[in-house]
């Protein structure tokens, strides 16, 4: 039975017209709603490439059943910046925190959740909080630099 439902994504209410029963939020975002910033890799919660915010909480969208979050506010990487690009996205560009780019959307979303929860994050906190996002290119150094630079800028330059 393919019962249509609605999702609230990035401030918009969107119709999911032909869902497959039980399918993940990741699949619905990409295949039904065309929001392909959310990436598919492991489909088992290991890699973090599909990270989104559900009511502000960081989740692997591959582990969320889409039909169970019809009344939640979902934020994908496409919906983070007020004017198209967020301070964290800009910092990733400026610090060279991107190599192949596949993990980047998930890391950007995770970094937003991280700094919302820990505005005073130390390097250790950043490392622990990013444990669910795998990057096979960068070695993480510049990613951590980028997040640090945003944390400092948001504190008005206080290191």
């Amino acid at each position: 039975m393919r019962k249509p439902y609605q999702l609230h994504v990035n401030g918009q209410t969107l119709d999911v017209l032909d869902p497959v029963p039980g399918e993940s939020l990741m699949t619905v975002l990409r295949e039904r709603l065309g929001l392909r910033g959310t990436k598919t890799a492991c489909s088992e919660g290991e890699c973090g490439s599909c990270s989104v915010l559900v009511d502000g909480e960081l989740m692997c969208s591959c582990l969320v059943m889409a039909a169970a979050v019809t009344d939640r506010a979902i934020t994908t990487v496409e919906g983070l910046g007020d004017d198209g690009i967020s301070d964290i996205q800009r910092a990733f560009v400026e610090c060279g925190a991107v190599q192949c780019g596949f993990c980047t959307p998930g890391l950007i979303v995770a970094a937003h959740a991280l700094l919302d929860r820990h505005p005073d994050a130390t390097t250790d906190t950043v490392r622990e909080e990013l444990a669910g996002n795998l990057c096979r290119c960068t070695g993480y150094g510049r990613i951590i630099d980028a997040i640090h630079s945003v944390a400092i800028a948001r504190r008005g330059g206080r290191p």
Partner: protein
Amino acid sequence: MLVSSPRSLEEALAALGDGSCRPLAGGTDLMVAVNHGHPMTSDVVSLDRVDEIRGLTLDGDVVRIGGAATWTLIADEPVRSTVPALAQAARTVGSPQIRNAGTIGGNIATASPAGDSLGVLAALDATVEVRSASRTRLMAIPDVIIGPKVTSLEADELIVAVHVPVVRGWQSYAKVGVRNAMVIATVGVATVVNEEARSVSFGLTSVGPTPLRCPDAEVAACEAFWTLDGTPRTPTARDIGHIAELVMEGAQPIDDHRSSVEYRRHSVGVLAARHLRTAARTLREQ
């Protein structure tokens, strides 16, 4: 196949009443199966909105943790200062994403031999509150988890809470895995030194079909931490070596894709000895 999101426990239990629906908590096990080609055929009752079982309360000397409380919640206060071993276990689960989703009830109901909370709950003699629309059962961990990924729960039953005693003394959970984060336990050891009851307990994860206790080691540890008249004493290095040997004997590890019998048995001894040394030092300094 339908997905319902009840707003109360009563509604959730009613929805599970005929035994044909699957409860969905964090999805960290169920959705992996769906993604890997096992589409849901039964109706799903999502516990996402059942607030009554998503929180936790500290009531005197028991922490009552809702069945759908997440690891993120459990890793924080008040559990961190009242049941530190459980908060430590919670912090070792997966990643922030997984800890925001996964629940303690899901850990118990999945009954994986590697479930991080299970050894801790066994060592603390936690009680699992199981309810259906018509009855409530209070069960010990070994009565719920009866085999690898096998529980004694009925299809209409839900884990609504876990009652965890607050113990005065020392406790910790230690885990061995291939990396620091995002790892399933190769070995887990929970140790609880209960100063009030003058008892010591060990709960082992990932070295048996179910979470294991170690009765022989517990008796020996009790004798090492207290004299016969109940006076506290500090275990000697020799005591600790002997107790760790008994914990190793209590383990029932297997060879599998994650590790070997020898490595697992050895690690259990290392972790137990480390715990006992830290416990002895901490209690002596108090």
